Every structure is written in C-alpha cells, then in structure tokens.
C-alpha cells in the first residue's frame, strides 16, 4: 500500500506541476480582447459619468441592437450600454445594476423572453477574471472554480500545440464564422458599450435559436425585477421595462406564450412597460446571427422606435426633464 500511495502521490505531483507549468507558460497578456472583458470598459464609462445617465441593460439583444450614440443625441443625456450576455442571468444583471446606478439615473431593462434567473457560472466567473468587482454580482465558489481552472488549463495546453482539438473542429463551420472574433470581442464594442463589430458584416445566413419553443411558466424574473425596482426607487433611480426584438417568423409561432407572459408582466410587474412585444418584431432579414441579435438595418429601426417610445412616454420625459434641469425627482 505504501508503494502504491507513494507512486500515486508522485503521479499526482507531476500532473499538478504540469498544470501549473502550462498556466505559467501561457501567462495571458494584460489586455484581453475577450468579449466578456468588455465589462471593464462598460463600468469604466459608467463610473466616469458623474451626472445622471441612461443605463441600457439586458441580454446581448441590447448589446447588439441599440445605437446608444443616437439615443444620447436624441435626449442629450449620457448613455451607457451595460448589456453583455443573456446567460449571465437576471440575478447577475440586477446586482450589476445595483452596483452601477447612481441617483437620478434612468434604467431601461430589455430582457429576452423567459430570461434565465441564475445564468452560467463559467460566464459569470469570466467577467470577474477581468473585472474584479463582478464577484459581487454572483456567488463565487471554489469547487466550480477548480473545474474551470482545469478546463482553462486544457485550452491553454491545446494552444501550446497551436492547433484545435477534434471536438472544436466539429462545429458547423458557418456557425464558427459567425462567432467571428471581430464580432465576439471586446474590440467589437464602441465607447458607449454597443457591439458595432457586426454592423458591416454579412449575415451568416441562418439564425441561432431559431425554432425556440417557449413553454409557459410564471416567469420568476418578475419578482426579481420588482425587488430591484424597490431598491432603485430608494436611490431615486427610475426603471422602465422593454420587450426584446424578435424575428417575425418565430414571433408568430410563440405568440400565444408571449401573450401570456405579457399578461403576467402587465398584472404583476411594478415597473412601467414601455412597449408591446410587436413593437420590436422585425423581418428575419433584420437579424444578424441569432434571433435576438439585430443587424445594422434592424438596429437602426429599433433605435428609432425606442426614441419614439421614450418621446411618447410621459414618465420618461418627465424624468429626462428633471435630469436636464438638475432636479432629479422621481415620479
């Protein structure tokens, strides 16, 4: 037994040393161009704006599909687009908002349908790898960290040999093209926090998420948003809810369930809803690579519509006026 334990220990030590060595050799550059690293720039902008601002957030539909610069021009209030990824989960996004909002801000929450509550740990951890404060937005745990550490080491090990593994090669090549590093990269964002890397790219020819079948459930996000809303009001911050963009062909298929969700939101959500689901329904050709990512044309249409919705909302207008007059009263 002693011999077995010594040998096992030796093997384990060599294995662990190899892992540490791989991580040591593959030390990453200080600047990361990973898509999730954009969280640094977004929060840097949010922190740098001292006066009340408009914060846009939600899943990647907001990152890909709104022209914040246009919005800023239209209302002469600074705009920050905090949105990154749907799979970060609603809980993460609301905690991030709690961290980012300041008195007098206006928040537009544009949430994809049946947005997940908790999100993916891997993505959440990624954000805090780049932006330490993001640890406040989820619950880090050492066990999942160990799993991620090993997985990351594996990827670095593959990088060392400068090749792709078989599994990585087996994806749909078209899909891999659309996950273009120029689009899914920190460098693809503009200074407002919008993804603009895809605007001049050709649509890959298909939409991921197509054929999504919604199953009705009372969406747990409603109570989470209401809870956030109570916190925001104490901070004198106003919050407005928006339905996300959706391709017309899929919208008709999911219409019944979306209508049920809308009815639940109307009855239970304490936050004012600015639009109807139909307002952001566009032809499939206005989408880029997923059912929530608008392309250049779709983004322009949606921004125009959003400006119109804001202009027509008495409560938002009142809030904007009070920001401009320096009197940040909550309605």
């Amino acid at each position, binding site marked *: 037994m002693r011999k*077995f334990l010594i040998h096992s220990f030796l093997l384990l030590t060599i294995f662990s040393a190899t892992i540490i060595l791989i991580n040591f050799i593959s030390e990453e550059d200080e600047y990361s161009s990973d898509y999730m690293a954009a969280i640094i720039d977004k929060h840097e902008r949010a922190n740098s704006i001292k006066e009340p601002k408009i914060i846009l957030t939600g899943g990647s539909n907001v990152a890909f599909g709104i022209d914040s610069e246009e919005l800023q021009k239209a209302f002469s209030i600074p705009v920050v687009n905090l949105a990154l990824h749907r799979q970060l989960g609603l809980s993460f996004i609301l905690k991030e908002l709690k961290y980012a909002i300041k008195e007098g801000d206006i928040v537009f929450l544009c949430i994809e349908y049946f947005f997940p509550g908790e999100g993916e740990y891997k993505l959440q951890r990624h954000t805090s790898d780049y932006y330490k404060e993001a640890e406040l937005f989820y619950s880090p745990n050492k066990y999942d960290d160990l799993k991620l550490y090993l997985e990351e080491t594996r990827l670095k090990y593959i990088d060392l040999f400068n090749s792709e*593994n078989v*599994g990585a090669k087996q994806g749909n090549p078209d899909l891999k093209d659309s996950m273009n590093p120029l689009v899914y990269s920190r460098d693809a964002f503009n200074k407002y926090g919008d993804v603009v890397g895809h605007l001049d790219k050709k649509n890959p020819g298909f939409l991921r998420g197509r054929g999504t079948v919604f199953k009705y459930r009372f969406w747990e996000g409603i109570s989470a948003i209401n809870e956030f809303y109570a916190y925001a009001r104490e901070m004198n911050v106003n919050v407005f809810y928006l339905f996300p963009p959706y391709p017309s062909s899929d919208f008709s298929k999911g219409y019944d369930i979306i209508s049920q969700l809308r009815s639940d939101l109307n009855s239970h959500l304490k936050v004012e809803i600015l639009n109807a689901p139909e307002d952001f329904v566009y032809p499939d050709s206005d989408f880029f690579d997923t059912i929530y990512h608008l392309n250049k044309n779709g983004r322009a249409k949606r921004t125009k519509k959003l400006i119109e919705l804001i202009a027509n909302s008495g409560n938002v207008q009142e809030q904007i006026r009070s920001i401009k007059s320096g009197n940040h009263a909550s309605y």
Partner: protein
Amino acid sequence: MLFNSIEFAIFLPIVFLLYWFIFNKSIFFQNFLLLVVSYIFYGWWDWRFLSLIIFSSLVDYFIGIKLSKTGNQRRRKLLLTASLLVNLGFLGFFKYFNFFVDSFVEAFTLFGSSFEPTRLSVILPVGISFYTFQTMSYTIDVYKGKLQPTRDIIAFFAFVSFFPQLVAGPIERAKNLLPQFSEKRRFEYDKAVDGLRQILWGLFKKMIIADNCAVVVDEIFFNYAEYSGSTLLMGALFFSFQIYGDFSGYSDIAIGTARLFGFSLMQNFAFPYFSRDMAEFWRRWHISLSTWFRDYLYIPLGGSRGSMWAKIRNIFIIFIVSGFWHGANWTFIVWGGLNALYFLPLSLLNKNRTNLDIVAKGKYLPTIREAFNMGLTFGLTVLAWVFFRAESVTHAFAYMGGMFSDSLLSYPEIVIKNLILLLGAFTLIEWFGREGQYAFANVSLLRPRPLRWFVYFFVIGLLFYFKANQPQPFVYFQF
C-alpha cells in the same frame, strides 16, 4: 455522478482512503462504507431513485431467506414470482409504460379509432435495467439452489448497489460478486495499478473516442437528409466506434475501480469488432448481458435443443428481448430482430461455435479469410447499429435509403482527418492488445518503469488535448 467528472475524481480517492485506512478493521465496516458511498454515488443524480433500489434490495433479500426456509415447491414458485413481479414491475412501469400506451394507441389509430391516453411523466431511474437484472439473478439462483442466500443484509445491499457497476454494468451474477463481499479483502499493489491502468484506458475510450465521434454522429443522424450516402455511411461507422468506446469504456472504468477495492468483475467486452462471425460477436459484446439472457432465458426456453422451429423461436425471443431491454422503442426491437436474422443461419448450421478463440492468436496479422470475415461481420454490425441509433424505425429506413443511394460512392461532405487518424490508432492499439483483458493491459510489460510512466502521461495528455468540447453522458445510462 459520472465517471468522467471532477466529482468522481474527488470522490474516488476519498472513498479509497477511507476504505483501506479507516474502515479496514472488518469486512462489515468496509461493506457498510461501500453501501453508503454507493448510495451517495447513485443519489447524486436524484436521491429519490434510492427508494427504488432500497425497496428492490429489501424484497430480494427477504425472498432469498424465505426461499431457503421452505421446501414447498408451490410456495417457492410463488416467492420467485413475487420477486420477478416487483423487479419487472418497476422496470415495466418506469421504462415501458409509455411505450406500451403509445403502441396501443397507434394500433387503434390503424383501425380508425383514436383517443387520448394517459401518459406518465416519470423520469427513467438511471441504471434501473442493470441493477434489476443483477438482483433478479440472485433470487433465481437461490430458487434454483445454485446459491445459498445471504443473511448479511449489509453485504447484500452493497452487492446490489456496488457503485462501480451500479448504473451501467457489468451485470454481475450473485454467484460471482456476492461471495466477494464476505471475503477478507487484501490490498494488492499489482491489482490496484492494473485497476488504475484500466480506468485510464476506459477514460480514453469514453472521452476521446466516444465523445468525439458523438458530435459528428449527432450532426449526421440529425441532418441525414442533407448528406450524401458516403457521409451517412461514415456516420454509421462513427456510431459503431462511439457505442463501443462509450460502453466498453464505462465497463473498463467500472472493472478498474472495483479492482482498487479488491473486487474482480467479469470482462464485459472482449474486442467484439475483431469477431469473425455474428455468434462470436455476441460472445464478445456486452458479455454480462448476453450470458444473463443465455442462462436465465434462452436455456430455460430449451436453448438450441428441440425442433428447428423451437430453435428459431428461442433465437428470436432472446434477441428481441435483448433489444427491448435496451429501450422502449421499436428501433431496439428491430435491431434485436436483425441480429437474430444474422445469428440464425449460424445456429441452424451448427456453426455458432466455430470461432471461440480470439482471431489470429499469437500472430501479428490475420489471414485473408479471417480479415474478410471480420470485415463482413463488422459491416453487418454497422448496419444494425443504424437502427440502434435512429430516433424511429422510419428514421432508420430513411437513413439506410440515403446511405445506399447513388451518392454512396461520392466524396463525403464531412471528413475529419484528426478523428479518422485517432480511430485508426485506436484500432491498432486494440488489435495488438486483443489477447489481454483490455487493450492497454500490455503497457504493464513495458520496461523500464519511466517508459511506462511516459505512456501514462502521454495518454493523460491525449485526454487533455482531444477531449471533446461537449462531454456526453454515457449512452448506456439511458438503459
């Protein structure tokens, strides 16, 4: 808990240390630990399933004791029937209820009637087909007087739930495994090292061969209408490797893990793709299940004795039941039927026991005749696997239609050179290791020790490098 998970990599060393250092005072303590950790292992999926395995174990434990106390044949039959009813009842309820309801409805629809049946929304408990068969073997052997019932309830419960082989076999016979729970276990260095080596090889088969094939197979089977015949053929070939790597990989990990605890489990796969006829294939593929059906179904039915019609009937019964065991879908039944058709001529011509030894024993290469026979047998197996993998019988026939179309000879749309090279290397390793219990066992012969260690690290490196991005659950868990 999956064998190819971090959870298991933490779980196994902890249990190993507890087993040999803390609970090593008596067999009772070691069995008790094995029982507890086996329930943790199983409950990791869903703790509610534990109630089934506990109930099943209780029933068979008490029926075993009752059987030993009564000589009344009628009463003994009744006890056996009760055990079979409980075990097969669970299996039928959780695995086959919806299948029978759907088939019933379809049959009625054919006659012009239609109705909305009550379907159950129950989850299939992981590994139910495996442990049910294991515990049934105990009761049947006690009934037949081949085995003395145990009165040690902890040993019996640990036998039914022994975590290395609980969810996907090998389906151990009580005669082989149960006595091992009553024997003093001594740690043996060579056995433990061999166990670790077999675990490593099992992980290689599962994580590299099976999981990488699975990605391509899923793509091709799902979008079969868009691919040429040659690509569909490639999909079927890849599936043959996937199912072998997946299932035999699991068995290797199970056998290796059991060895770490001083237990010997039966060999479950003996290089089936090197078989020279279908009879040999079935002696080498999923051995624990084939022999289970042989002993508890085929032979009681009369086996190969009796009239030709009885022989034919028995062959079809055993293969179709074996197919149905795999899942509640007509595809498995057709797969079983097809294998019966393959096997039938050999049996009727009394040629089903021609090839008992491994092919080209003691030689590097097979003869041309052997190579041809192996190729033919493999080809037939690949065709049958299409039914096994397809979602429905219609899907399987459409897939076959696409495969045997004009485009069969065209250049395939999907050619993954890395994967093909891997499969080639894997086949070579299997070929050169075919006389051992598992292909990688030969590594133990390498001298000096650093060379062996280099090979181990090389395989670990391959696991890291070629591991598929999306780990797949073991295919056989669904059975």
